[in-house]
């Protein structure tokens, strides 16, 4: 009995393989999209903010003090001094044009104030149209200035023969992503997104296509059973999606230098669970939709958007309103992204990941049984 079932599953899987191979559209979709997305996100989407364009108006240019102070900006990778000016008109124009992000204005009597032990004002004009970047850039300026202040204090105390005051000194040590490279953080998310989209999109077309072309009519007049059909259709797409996972893994490692510190075996096992869920979701969509256009739209809508916005892929979940945070528990990619990041960067094992793994198992199980049930209803 099982052997006979396998025979049918084999026939369906083989037929599906041939069809994919003969359809340049789905083939390029399956193999092109992952590479394309990884390149775009890997190179294009950098959340790191450095080389903040800064224009300087040093009204006290003749003093050594002001020039020494500016060295702190020149020597930092966080700033890029794009030019010097001597009037506000230029500053306004440059900020309006987007040629610069900030303008730093050192007043005329800057050195005078400092040398006479007074507080020196320093003007900073920031383009706040991108609030996030502006906040971060201002933080950079503050940290440069506070370091300079500490030096000033020390100097003053020294010159008066006093001991420096006690102060706190943070000694940060960053784990997992030591260089705080945002690509390391993004790439695992991109892989999750690719697998989700590819799986759901490809399978969503396969059943809808059979309805559209009338081949389903013939198929359901045969004694083929719903589980056989679902699993048979499943196998080729599982293979493709798994291949995409490998492509993503290799690109992440080789192209973007993301480390992989966990167990490959665990990665493949948990990915298989995620794939099963995503592929089954595609089959459910396909059974419901009955036309290829409708199916692909539904698949994109139900996989791309939640995975992009609600999985913690880019936007941190803890920053979302409570209601949305609750919704994210229903997004399978949320768990898969945690797993990928943990495996890539932290090197965690199943002991820390078991709850995510459990959810993925549930996702796979529920979706697969639902796909088979939906199919059964349509078929007989």
């Amino acid at each position, binding site marked *: 009995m099982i052997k006979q079932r396998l025979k049918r599953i084999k026939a369906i899987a083989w*037929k599906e393989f041939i069809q994919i191979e003969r359809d340049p559209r789905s083939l390029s979709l399956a193999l092109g999209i992952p590479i394309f997305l990884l390149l775009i996100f890997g190179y294009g989407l950098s959340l790191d903010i450095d080389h903040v364009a800064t224009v300087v108006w040093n009204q006290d240019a003749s003093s050594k003090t002001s020039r020494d102070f500016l060295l702190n900006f020149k020597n930092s990778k966080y700033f890029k001094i794009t030019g010097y000016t001597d009037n506000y008109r230029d500053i306004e124009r440059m900020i309006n044009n987007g040629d610069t992000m900030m303008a730093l204005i050192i007043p005329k009597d800057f050195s005078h104030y400092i040398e006479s032990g007074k507080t020196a004002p320093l003007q900073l004009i920031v383009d706040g149209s991108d609030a996030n970047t502006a906040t971060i850039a201002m933080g950079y300026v503050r940290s440069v200035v506070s370091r300079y202040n500490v030096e000033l204090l020390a100097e003053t105390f020294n010159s008066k023969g006093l001991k420096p005051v006690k102060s706190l000194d943070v000694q940060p040590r960053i784990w997992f992503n030591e260089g705080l490279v945002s690509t390391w953080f993004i790439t695992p998310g991109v892989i999750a997104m690719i697998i989700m989209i590819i799986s759901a999109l490809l399978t969503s077309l396969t059943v809808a296509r059979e309805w559209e*072309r*009338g081949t389903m009519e013939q198929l359901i*007049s045969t004694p083929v059973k719903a589980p056989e059909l679902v699993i048979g259709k499943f196998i080729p797409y599982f293979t493709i999606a798994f291949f995409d996972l490998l492509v993503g893994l290799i690109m992440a490692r080789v192209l973007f230098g993301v480390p992989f510190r966990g167990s490959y075996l665990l990665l493949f096992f948990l990915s298989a669970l995620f794939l099963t869920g995503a592929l089954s979701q595609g089959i459910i969509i396909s059974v419901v939709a009955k036309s290829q256009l409708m199916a692909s739209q539904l698949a994109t809508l139900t996989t791309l958007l939640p995975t992009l916005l609600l999985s913690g892929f880019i936007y941190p979940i803890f920053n979302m309103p409570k209601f949305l945070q609750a919704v994210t528990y229903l997004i399978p990619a949320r768990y898969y992204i945690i797993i990928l990041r943990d495996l890539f960067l932290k090197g965690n094992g199943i002991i820390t990941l078991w709850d995510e793994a459990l959810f993925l198992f549930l996702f796979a199980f529920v979706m697969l049984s639902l796909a088979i049930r939906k199919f059964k209803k349509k078929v007989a």
Partner: protein
Amino acid sequence: MDTAVSVSKLEKKFGQFTAVNKIDFEVKQGEIFGFLGPNGAGKSTTIRMLCGIIPPTSGTGQVGGFDINREQHKIKEHIGYMSQKFSLYNDLTVEENINFYSGIYKIPQNEKEERFKAVIHAAGLEGMESRLTVTLAGGWKQRLALGCALLHKPKIIFLDEPTSGVDPITRASFWDTIKELASRGVTVFITTHYMDEAENTNRMVLIYRGNIIAMGTPSEMKTKCMTNEVLEVTVANSQDWLERISKIPGIKEAALFGANIHTVVYDSAKAKPAIEQLLRAEKAGAFQVNKILPSLEDVFVSLIENYDKTETKKN
């Protein structure tokens, strides 16, 4: 003889629309059973219920001894089905299509080769095994579809308008294949809207608007189901006389049939002299008026018209 298919009060509704209205019929084993009717009469819906593709709204029935409401799966093991629309995979080759259905029907490995050759031979597709199905001409596609539906040697085969859109020569050879199948004891359940094809069946029903309005062998249909009579008028330039003849009282209708005119009349004893009189008076030249056995097309047209009339009266 055993019964291959029987249904009782079989009904299918789509929302408010009744596609099949509580019909009863029986098909005997080894019979070529014609299911005739115009487009939209409920032929495909009936066939799809029998094949277990869609469930009936109500009614009972059996196909090959299996209940159509509960044992659809067993039915599917024992029947072949060829749908109205070509439904093999266009993007597979001939060989791949056959292999696919061999797998689906679980043909044992040691028989696969032999059945494959048989299908190719029967469909006349030798040398075209590796051609993409999409590149085959209509008739070949049809025969390939039939071959795939027969792969598992079913006892009953359902053919839904297998000859629509196929040229006359292919149609004729298709019917030869069907007769050959029946001679081997296979029950053939075939729908068509080509009335002339009904002559090839052993028995038939005529379905119209979801109701069975006649049932019988071809000769029974011609003799029993027709209350009117048919006169064949042979005359030169028959098309010019058609309208004049149809206006003669006692003539229900007249239609061109090849080069002749077929008239359906209430009483041939009265109508025949009337036509002869008209043609003689108008100097039509040599002519002949003969009472003939109606063709099935005459029978069906007349049955459907009668049905429509009684339905209008009812409302």
